[in-house]
C-alpha cells in the first residue's frame, strides 16, 4: 500500500514539475520522456528476454514516419489516436522483422536486426516520394481538444509535456504489467534457458516473437512522440546512430531494473548536453564512459546502488551472490 502512495505522489510531482522549469529545460524533459520509453522498451527485449537488437531504431522510426504520414494524408487526426495507429504500424513491422530474426540467437540475431534497420534506413532515404528522403518529413500534430473544452496546443511545450507524460506513463504501465504476467515470465525463461523452457512446453519461437512485437510497438509509440515533438522525422531516426544510442542509454541506467533504462536516458541526455557545452570531443567521452561502465559497472547506475552492486559491496550491505532480474 505504501508503495502505491509513493508512486501516486511521484506521478503528481511529475505533472507539477514543469512549473519550476524554463522552456529549454522543459524541452529536455520531454526528450527524456520519449527516449526513456524507447530505452525501457529496448530493455524488454535485452534485459528481460536476452535478445540484443542493434536495429531497434527500426520501429522507432516507423512510429515517427507513421504519424507524419497520417497527419499529412489523413488530416487532423487527434494525437492520441494517431499515436495508436503509429503503434499498430510499429507492431506490424515488428512482427515481420521479428518473424525472421527471432529464430536466430546471439550475434546472428543482433546482425540480422541490424540488417533490417539499415534496409529500412535505405528505404526512408531513397523513397523520396513518400518520405521526402534526406530532407525529412514534416510532422504537424493538430491541437488537441479535450472533453470539457480545454485545448492543448502542440506548439506549447507545457501542453506537450503533459500529453507526452500521460502517454508515456500509460505505456510504462502496460510494460510493467506485461512483465508480471505469465508471458512476461516466459520472456525471462527465454533469457535464462530457452532450451529448458521448450522442454517444459513453451513455444520458444512464438514467445520470443510476441515479446519482440510488443517491445517494437512501444518503441513505435516513443518514435511517434519524438516526431510529434520535433515536428520533423528524417531517415536519421532509423539509422545506426539512433539504434546504438538507445543501447547506450539502457545500459547506462542498468538493464536489471524496470526503470533502469529510464534513469540511464536521463543521465545520458543530461550528460551529453553538459558535455557538449564543455568540449567538442564529447562523443569520445561518452564512448569512453561506456567502455568503463561495461568493465566496472555493467549493471549500470541502478547496479551501482542496488543489490550486489559496488556501493553495497563496499558497504558490505548484501550477501546474495545472484543477480535478480527484477
Amino acid at each position, binding site marked *: 500500500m505504501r508503495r502505491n502512495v509513493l508512486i501516486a505522489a511521484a506521478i503528481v510531482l511529475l505533472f507539477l514539475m514543469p512549473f519550476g522549469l524554463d522552456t529549454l529545460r522543459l524541452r529536455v524533459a520531454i526528450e527524456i520522456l520519449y527516449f526513456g520509453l524507447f530505452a525501457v522498451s529496448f530493455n524488454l527485449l535485452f534485459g528481460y528476454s536476452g535478445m540484443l537488437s542493434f536495429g531497434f531504431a527500426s520501429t522507432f522510426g516507423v512510429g515517427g514516419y507513421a504519424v507524419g504520414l497520417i497527419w499529412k494524408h489523413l488530416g487532423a487526426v487527434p494525437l492520441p489516436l494517431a499515436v495508436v495507429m503509429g503503434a499498430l504500424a510499429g507492431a506490424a513491422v515488428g512482427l515481420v522483422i521479428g518473424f*525472421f530474426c527471432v529464430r536466430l540467437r546471439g*550475434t546472428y540475431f543482433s546482425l*540480422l536486426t541490424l540488417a533490417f534497420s539499415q534496409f529500412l534506413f535505405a528505404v526512408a532515404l*531513397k523513397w523520396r516520394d513518400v518520405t521526402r528522403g534526406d530532407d525529412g518529413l514534416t510532422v504537424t500534430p493538430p491541437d488537441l481538444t479535450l472533453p470539457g473544452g480545454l485545448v492543448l496546443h502542440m506548439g506549447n511545450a507545457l501542453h506537450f509535456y503533459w500529453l507526452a507524460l500521460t502517454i508515456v506513463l500509460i505505456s510504462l504501465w502496460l510494460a510493467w504489467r506485461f512483465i508480471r504476467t505469465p508471458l512476461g515470465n516466459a520472456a525471462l525463461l527465454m533469457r535464462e534457458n530457452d532450451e529448458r523452457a521448450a522442454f517444459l512446453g513453451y513455444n520458444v519461437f512464438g514467445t520470443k516473437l510476441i515479446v519482440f512485437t510488443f517491445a517494437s510497438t512501444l518503441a513505435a509509440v516513443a518514435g511517434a512522440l519524438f516526431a510529434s515533438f520535433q515536428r520533423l522525422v528524417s531517415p536519421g531516426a532509423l539509422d*545506426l546512430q539512433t539504434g546504438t544510442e538507445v543501447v547506450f542509454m539502457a545500459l547506462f541506467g542498468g538493464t536489471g531494473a524496470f526503470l533502469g533504462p529510464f534513469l540511464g536516458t536521463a543521465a545520458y541526455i543530461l550528460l551529453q548536453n553538459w558535455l557538449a557545452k564543455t568540449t567538442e570531443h564529447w562523443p569520445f567521452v561518452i*564512448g569512453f564512459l561506456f567502455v568503463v561502465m561495461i568493465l566496472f559497472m555493467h549493471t549500470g547506475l541502478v547496479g551501482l546502488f542496488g543489490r550486489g552492486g559496488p556501493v553495497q559491496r563496499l558497504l558490505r550491505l548484501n550477501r546474495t551472490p545472484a543477480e535478480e532480474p527484477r
Partner: protein
Amino acid sequence: MFGLSVYATQALHGMVYGMLLFLVSSGLTLVFGMMGILNIAHAAFYMLGAYLAYTTVAATGSFWLSLLVAPIVVGLLGAAVERGLLRRIHRYGHAYELLLTFGLFYMMAEAVRWIWGNYTLEVPTPALLSGSIPLLGSQYPVYRLFILAFSALICLAMATVLLRTRVGIIIRSAVADGEMVSALGINTPLVALGVFSVGAALAAIAGVIAAPFLQADPAMGAAILVDSFVVVVVGGFGSLLGALLASLMIGELQSFGILWFPAFAMVFQFLLMAAVLVLRPQGLFGEKG
C-alpha cells in the same frame, strides 16, 4: 550499353576492394570462430592503420615504413584489448563482450576524430607505384594492382602458415573446437591472444595499403564495418576460404551494383546478409550450430 573494357575494369575494381575487405575480415572471422566474439572494434583497427600511415608518411616520408609501424602498433593495441579488457568481462557473457567491442569502436573512432581532425587526409601514393599502365583498353592505376598483388601475397602467406605449420594447425583446431584443443594441453588463451593481435595487425596493414587509394577519413571505419560483417556472415564464421570468397563476392557486388543500380547499391550487402542469415545462418563454410 557498356563496353567490355568497362565491365572488365569494374570487375578489377571489385577484386581490389574485395581483397582489401578480405584482409580486414580474415582476423574478424578467425576471432569469431575461436572466441565467439564478433569484434566490432576490428574496423577501428583498420582505420587506425590508415591514419598511422598518414602520420608516418608525414613524419618520415616513407610509405614502406608505415607498413611496419602500423601493424606493430595496432597489433600491440589488439593484444592489450584482448588481454586487458575482453578477458576481464568474459564471464558476463557474449552480449557484453559484443557491447564492449562496440564501445571500443565508438571510442576509437572518436579518438581518431580528435587526434587527426574530422576531415579527410590525403596519403600520397608512393612514387614507385604511382601512375597508370594500359590495361584492358584503358589506363589502370598501378597502385591498385599493387593492392591486389600485395593482398594476394599476404593471403598466400596466411594459407601457408595455417596449412603447413604447427602454429597454423593449432589455430585451425582452436577455431574448430577450442575445448578439445585446451584439453590437449595447448595454451588456448595464448592462442586467442595471438590470433586477436595478428588479426588486428592484418586489419592495420589493410588500412595502410588502402590509405593512398581510399584516403584516410573518419568514416572509413564505419564504411568497412558493415561490409566486413556481411563477409563474415556469408563466408561462415571461422572460415578463411569463406571470407575470401565472400569478400570477392561483395567487392564485385558493390562494383557492379554502383554501375547498374546506383540508387540501391548500399542495400545489396544487407539483403545478402539477411538472406544468408535467414536461409543458411552458418554461411558458405561455417560450422552449423
